[in-house]
C-alpha cells in the first residue's frame, strides 16, 4: 500500500464511487463521486489526536464492530492515505453540536463544509478490483449468528487474533471476556449449499484459513481444544497439503467429517451446543465455548450496479463472466477484472490476475506507453567528501503520539550535546510538508551532511526522508531514522521519564551510526528489451503473445517439434472450453506474430548474465544460437505420473484420466460402451513420496464422468475419492454429476481400494475393485470394464536442469519456487526471471492463462524501462584484506560473489547487481574484508558502543516493567 501511495504515476482516490462510464476502450470518460470525509487530506497527518478527544463512540467497522472506535477515526493503523474521516455518527453532522476535533487539530485539517465532489477522469482501460464480501450468516437463521454471543464468523475471529484487534490480540468471548478453551469451527458456511441465501459454489479459501486460525489459536493458547467440522478438506493449493497435516497433527486438534447443526445456547455459560454425526458414534451433541463459522466468499453487495455502470455481464453467481477462457477479460472490451470479482480466489491468484490485468491493459494502450508518466528531477548532489560529519537531528512530536510521552524538548537539548551534532530541533510532524521543507532548508543553511530523524519506524517513512535529502542535494544514504515511536512512546506510554531517557539513548545510537554513514550511489543498468520464454505450452504461448502485443521481441523455445505442450492431450474443460480449437488459435497467433520467434526441438545449453542483460545459448534443430535478452520466463510445464499401482501398464482396462479423456474424445467404443466404470483419485500424490495435491484431478474426473454420462446415460460410474476438491464454480459440476447418479465413495489412505483382474458375473474379463464403503460399513466389490486413475501431476523432468541454469530454486516437491508464495507468485527471487503455468504448481487451464498474463505483466514492467536501478546498500570486498578463503562465496545464495584473478592472486569480488544486501557474507568473513555498505562494521559497532556509554538501559526497562 505504501508503495502504491508513493508511486509517481498512481493517483489514489479513496472514499469515492464510480457514477458513470462513457466512451469506449482507449477513451473512457469516468465520472467519480468523492464522498466528503470532512478532512482536508493534504493537511491531515494521521496523528489521531482528534480521535483521542472525540467524545462520540462509533462501532469500529474494521474490527467487525466487536469493539468501538470514535466518530472521527482512521480506518486502520496502516490505512492509505493515513488520514482520518468522520462518519455519520458525528455529533456535529447529526445535531450540529460539538466541534472539539476542530479545536484540537493543530494542522487545521477539519472541514465540516465539505460536500460530495464530482470528478471526471479520462482513461484508456479500466480494471475492476472490487473484491469480495465475507458471507453474512445472519441471513440464515440456523447459524444463530447475532443471537448467540459466542457464535462468531471467521472474519470476527481473524480480528480477535490480530494485535490491532478488539482485544489487542487476545482471543476473548464477547459474553464474558474470558478465553475460550474449547473452540469449534464449522466449515462451508454460505458455501457449497443450495439452501436459499447461500452459495452453491466452493469458496476455495476457507479450509486453509481455518487451519491457519487453528494453528494461531494453538500458538496463543497451547491448551486450547480445537475442533473443525468439515466436508471435504480442500487443501488443493501450493503447500496447502503440508499445512493441513501440520494443523491436523497438533495436540488437542480434531478434524471431524460431518454435517453439523447449532442446536442451542446454554443460558448460564453462554456455551454453544453443536450436533454432529460420525460413522463410529452416530449422532452426538457437544458443548463448545465458542463456535467459529467459516464463512465463504460472496460477491460484493453492489455488484449488480456494475452491470449498469460498467456494462459488463456477470455469471449466475454474481461474479464477472469470463471471456473465452480468459478470466481477466470481461464481456466489454477495455474493461478487465482482477482478484475476487473473478470468483472466489486466494491471494496468489489475486496477485497474478492483477498483474495480468495490467498486461492486458498494456496490450491496448502500448502505443502511448509512458506519454503521461511523471519523473522526479532532483538537484545535483553536493560532494561532502573529506568533510567532518555535520549532523542535524530532528525530533518529531508526531502530534501527541510521541510528544505526550517523551519530553521532546529535553531530547533536543540532549542531542545538541552529542558529538558531531551541529543542529537539533523539534518538529510537530516531521512528515508534514512544512516540516519537510524546513529540513531541506536547514540542510543548506547549516551545511548539514547527515540527518537523523527521530520519529517513527523507518518502515513507514524512511523512503520519504531519503527523498527529502535528495531534494536538499544530499546523498540519500546520509539519512538515519531513530524510532522513538513504535519502539518507545507507544510501548512505554505510562513511564514518561524512562521513555524520555530511552528516546535519548536511541537518538545517541543513531547519531553514532549516522557519523559512520557514507554516500552510496544507486546505479542504472541498461535493459535489453527482448524476452526469452522457455516452454511452448499454453502458459508460454499466452505469455509470449501478451509481451509481443505490447511491442517487445520474444524468443519462444520449445523442446518438442510442435507447440502446445500438455494441452494437446486435453480436449475439454469443465466450463466447456474446446481446448483443441483454443490451442489451434493460440498457435496460429504465435506463428503470425512478427515479434515472436519460435525455436523447436530446442535445448538450453547455457545461461549467463543478470537482470536486463542475459545471454542464453540455445540449441535448436541442430543449430546453436545465442540469444541476448533482458527477461526470462520459465513455463516448462509439468509431467504426468506413470502409476505403478492398480495394474496400470499391465491391464489394458486400466488407464489414466488423461488417457480416458483422449479415448472419450476419440469416441472409442470400449470406453463409451462400458457398462461400469470406476475412477480412483489421488494416485501418486498426497502420500509420503509426493506430499501435495495435484489440484486438477477431481475436476478432471467429474469432467470425464459428465462427458460419459452424456454419451452413455446408462453407464454406472463410481468415483473413489479421499476429498473431492472441485473448488470454486467447479462445485456445480460435482453436484451435477451426483445428480446424474455418478456414485462417489470416500476412502481413507490407510484403507485404499484393492484392484485385481477378474471375471464378472457374465463371464467377461474385468478389473475387480474392492473398496470399504464408509456409509454402508462393508466392503464393496465393483467389477469394472474400465478403471481410470487420477495420476498425479509431477514436476517436469527438466525442472532441475532449468533451475540450475537460471539460478532459481525448486520447492521440496520439485516445482519451481516463486519469490513469495502469496505476494510474488510469478517472480523468482532472482531478478528478471519469471514463472508461469504448471511449472509453478498444477493448475487448471484458466488459472494457467491468468498466471501467464501475470508473468507477462511483471516482465513488461521491467522491459518498459530503459534501465533498472540497483541498490547502493550492497557488499564490496576490500581486496587487500581478502585471504581467498571462499567463506563469502559459499554463504551467498545469490551467487553474487566470485573469485577473480588479480595480480595479488585470487580475490573475491561482488557483482553488485546480483547482491541483495543481506550481509550474510560479512558475518562469515574471518578478516572483515567483505563490507555491506550502509551497514558496515564501523556503523553497527559505533551504534553498539553508543548503547553502552549510557547508564544501563536494562535498569530503566526493568523500572518500566515494574511500573506497568
Amino acid at each position, binding site marked *: 500500500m505504501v508503495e502504491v501511495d508513493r508511486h509517481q504515476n498512481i493517483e489514489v482516490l479513496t472514499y469515492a464511487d464510480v457514477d458513470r462510464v462513457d466512451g469506449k476502450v482507449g477513451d473512457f470518460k469516468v465520472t467519480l463521486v468523492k464522498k466528503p470525509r470532512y478532512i482536508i487530506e493534504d493537511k491531515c497527518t494521521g496523528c489521531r489526536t482528534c480521535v483521542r478527544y472525540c467524545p462520540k463512540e462509533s462501532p469500529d467497522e474494521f474490527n467487525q464492530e466487536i469493539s468501538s472506535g470514535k466518530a472521527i477515526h482512521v480506518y486502520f493503523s496502516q490505512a492509505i492515505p493515513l488520514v482520518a474521516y468522520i462518519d455519520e455518527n458525528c455529533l456535529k453532522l447529526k445535531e450540529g453540536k460539538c466541534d472539539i476535533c476542530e479545536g484540537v487539530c493543530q494542522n487545521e485539517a477539519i472541514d465540516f463544509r465539505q460536500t460530495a465532489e464530482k470528478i471526471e477522469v479520462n482513461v484508456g482501460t479500466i480494471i475492476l478490483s472490487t473484491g469480495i464480501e465475507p458471507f453474512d450468516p445472519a441471513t440464515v437463521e440456523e447459524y444463530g449468528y447475532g443471537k448467540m454471543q459466542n457464535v462468531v464468523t471467521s472474519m470476527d475471529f481473524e480480528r480477535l487474533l490480530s494485535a490491532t484487534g478488539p482485544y489487542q490480540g487476545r482471543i476473548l468471548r464477547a459474553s464474558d471476556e474470558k478465553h475460550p478453551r474449547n473452540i469449534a469451527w464449522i466449515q462451508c458456511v454460505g458455501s457449497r449449499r443450495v439452501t436459499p441465501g447461500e452459495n452453491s459454489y466452493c469458496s476455495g479459501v476457507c479450509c486453509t484459513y481455518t487451519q491457519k486460525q487453528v494453528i494461531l489459536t494453538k500458538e496463543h493458547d497451547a491448551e486450547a481444544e480445537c475442533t473443525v467440522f468439515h466436508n471435504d478438506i480442500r487443501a488443493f493449493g501450493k503447500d496447502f497439503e503440508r499445512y493441513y497435516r501440520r494443523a491436523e497433527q497438533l495436540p488437542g486438534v480434531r478434524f471431524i467429517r460431518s454435517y453439523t447443526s447449532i442446536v442451542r445456547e446454554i443460558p448460564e455459560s453462554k456455551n454453544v451446543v453443536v450436533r454432529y454425526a460420525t460413522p463410529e458414534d452416530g449422532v452426538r451433541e457437544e458443548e463448545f465455548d465458542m463456535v467459529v463459522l467459516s464463512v465463504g466468499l460472496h460477491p460484493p453487495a453492489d455488484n449488480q450496479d456494475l452491470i449498469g455502470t460498467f456494462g459488463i455481464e456477470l455469471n449466475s453467481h454474481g461474479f464477472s463472466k469470463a471471456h473465452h477462457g480468459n478470466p481477466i477479460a470481461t464481456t466489454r472490451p477495455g474493461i478487465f477484472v482482477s482478484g475476487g470479482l473473478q470468483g472466489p480466489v486466494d491471494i496468489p491468484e489475486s496477485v497474478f490476475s492483477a498483474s495480468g490485468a495490467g498486461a492486458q491493459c498494456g496490450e491496448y494502450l502500448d502505443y502511448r506507453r509512458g506519454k503521461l508518466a511523471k519523473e522526479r528531477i532532483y538537484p545535483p548532489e553536493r560532494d561532502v567528501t573529506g568533510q567532518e560529519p555535520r549532523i542535524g537531528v530532528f525530533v518529531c512530536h508526531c502530534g501527541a503520539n510521541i510528544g505526550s510521552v517523551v519530553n521532546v524538548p529535553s531530547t533536543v537539548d540532549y542531542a545538541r550535546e552529542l558529538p558531531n551534532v551541529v543542529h537539533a530541533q523539534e518538529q510537530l510532524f516531521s512528515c508534514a510538508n512544512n516540516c519537510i521543507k524546513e529540513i531541506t532548508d536547514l540542510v543548506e543553511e547549516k551545511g548539514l551532511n547527515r540527518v537523523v530523524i527521530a520519529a517513527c519506524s523507518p518502515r513507514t517513512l524512511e523512503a520519504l526522508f531519503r527523498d527529502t535529502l535528495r531534494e536538499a542535494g544530499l546523498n540519500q544514504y546520509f539519512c538515519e531514522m531513530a524510532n522513538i515511536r513504535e519502539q518507545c512512546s507507544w510501548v512505554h506510554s505510562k513511564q514518561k521519564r524512562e521513555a524520555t531517557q530511552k528516546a535519548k539513548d536511541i537518538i545517541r545510537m543513531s547519531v553514532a551510526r549516522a557519523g559512520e554513514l557514507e554516500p552510496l550511489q544507486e546505479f542504472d543498468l541498461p535493459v535489453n528489451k527482448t524476452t526469452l520464454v522457455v516452454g511452448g505450452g499454453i502458459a508460454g504461448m499466452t505469455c509470449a503473445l501478451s509481451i509481443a502485443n505490447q511491442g517487445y521481441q520474444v524468443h519462444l523455445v520449445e523442446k518438442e517439434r510442435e507447440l502446445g505442450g500438455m494441452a494437446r492431450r486435453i480436449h475439454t474443460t469443465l466450463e466447456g472450453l474446446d481446448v483443441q480449437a483454443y490451442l489451434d488459435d493460440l498457435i496460429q497467433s504465435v506463428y503470425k506474430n512478427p515479434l515472436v520467434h519460435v525455436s523447436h526441438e530446442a535445448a538450453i545449453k547455457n545461461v549467463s548474465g543478470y537482470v536486463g542483460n542475459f545471454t542464453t545459448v540455445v540449441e535448436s534443430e541442430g543449430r546453436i544460437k545465442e540469444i541476448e535478452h533482458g527477461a526470462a520466463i520459465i513455463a516448462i510445464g509439468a509431467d504426468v505420473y506413470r502409476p505403478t499401482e492398480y495394474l496400470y501398464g499391465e491391464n489394458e482396462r486400466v488407464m489414466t484420466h488423461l488417457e480416458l479423456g483422449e479415448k472419450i474424445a476419440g469416441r472409442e467404443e470400449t470406453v463409451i460402451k462400458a457398462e461400469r466404470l470406476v475412477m480412483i483419485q489421488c494416485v501418486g500424490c498426497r502420500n509420503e513420496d509426493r506430499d501435495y495435491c495435484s489440484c486438477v484431478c477431481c475436476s478432471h474426473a467429474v469432467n470425464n464422468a459428465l462427458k460419459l454420462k452424456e454419451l452413455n446415460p446408462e453407464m454406472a460410474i463410481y468415483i473413489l475419492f479421499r476429498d473431492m476438491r472441485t473448488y470454486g464454480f467447479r462445485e456445480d459440476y460435482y453436484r451435477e454429476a451426483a445428480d446424474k447418479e455418478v456414485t462417489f465413495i470416500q476412502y481413507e489412505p490407510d484403507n485404499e481400494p484393492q484392484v485385481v483382474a477378474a471375471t464378472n458375473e457374465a463371464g467377461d474379463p474385468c478389473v475387480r475393485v474392492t473398496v470399504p464403503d464408509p456409509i454402508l460399513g462393508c466392503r464393496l466389490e465393483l467389477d469394472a470394464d474400465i478403471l481410470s486413475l487420477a495420476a498425479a501431476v509431477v514436476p517436469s523432468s527438466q525442472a532441475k536442469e532449468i533451475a540450475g541454469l537460471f539460478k532459481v*530454486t525448486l520447492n521440496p516437491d520439485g516445482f519451481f519456487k516463486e519469490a513469495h508464495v502469496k505476494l510474488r507468485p510469478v517472480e523468482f527471487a532472482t531478478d528478471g526471471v519469471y514463472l508461469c503455468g504448471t511449472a509453478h504448481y498444477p493448475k487448471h487451464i484458466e488459472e494457467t492463462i491468468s498466471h501467464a498474463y501475470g508473468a507477462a505483466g511483471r516482465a513488461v514492467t521491467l522491459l518498459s524501462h530503459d534501465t533498472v536501478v540497483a541498490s547502493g546498500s550492497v557488499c564490496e570486498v576490500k581486496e587487500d584484506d581478502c585471504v581467498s578463503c571462499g*567463506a563469502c562465496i559459499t*554463504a551467498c545464495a545469490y551467487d553474487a560473489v566470485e573469485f577473480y584473478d588479480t595480480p595479488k592472486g585470487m580475490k573475491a569480488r561482488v557483482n553488485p547487481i546480483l547482491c541483495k*544486501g543481506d550481509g550474510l557474507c*560479512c*558475518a562469515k568473513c*574471518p578478516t572483515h574484508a567483505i563490507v*555491506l555498505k550502509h551497514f558496515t562494521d564501523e556503523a553497527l559497532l559505533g551504534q*553498539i558502543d553508543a548503547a553502552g556509554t549510557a547508564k544501563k538501559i*536494562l535498569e530503566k526497562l526493568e523500572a518500566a516493567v515494574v511500573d506497568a
Partner: protein
Amino acid sequence: MCSGRVDPEFVFRAFATGQDGVLIGGCRLNECNYITHGNYDALSNTYICKNIMERIGLNPERLSIEFMSGGDGNRLTEAVNDFTWKVKELGPLGEAEGIENNRLKGDLEAVIKIIPYIKLVEREKLRPPVKSGKAYNEFFTSDEVNRLLGDLIGEKLTISRIVTLLREKPLPAGEISEILGLDPSEVTKHMNSSSRQGLVTYDIDSKCYALALSGA
C-alpha cells in the same frame, strides 16, 4: 540486512561495553525474507556464542535469539519482557557470575581476538545437516559438538586468554590458573608449548611467564 549479518563480534562487543544481555531478533525460521535462510546462521552463531560464554564463566542465558515476523507485535513484546526479566534476575554482568571486572574485560577481549578463527571452525565443522530449529538444537547441544568445540575453540580461547592476561604483567603459572579459573596442569601445558614456540619467556628468578613479543 539479515539477522545472519549479526557478527559474533557484535555480541561480545555489546557485553564488553557493559550490556547485561543481548537479544537477537530474526525472521521466523523457514520464512526467509531473502532466499538465504540466514536466520539459521544467526541461530548457529548464537549457540556457538553461548558455548563460549560458558567457557569464560558467563551465564549463556544472557544471550537469546527470537524469531518473529513483522506482524508478531505481541511476540516481540513478550520476548522483550521475558528477556528483560530474565536478565534482571541474573543481575549485572560479571558481578553476578563472580568474575572480577578486569578479568571479564580481558576475557571478552580474548574472545573477540579469536573470532576469525571461530568463523573458520564454524564453516568447516559446525554446519548442522538439516535446517530446522529442532535439528539445530540437537546438533549444538550434543556431546559430540560440545567436545568438538572444546577441542577446536576451547584451546585457542585458553591461549588467547592467557596472552591477554600476560600483556598486563608477567605472572607465575599458579597465578594464571587461579585468575582464569583454569586447571594448573593445563596452564603448564600451554606455557611449555608456548615457550618452545618462543611466544613466551620464563624468568627463573621470579618464576613468571612474560610475553616474548610486545605485540603478540
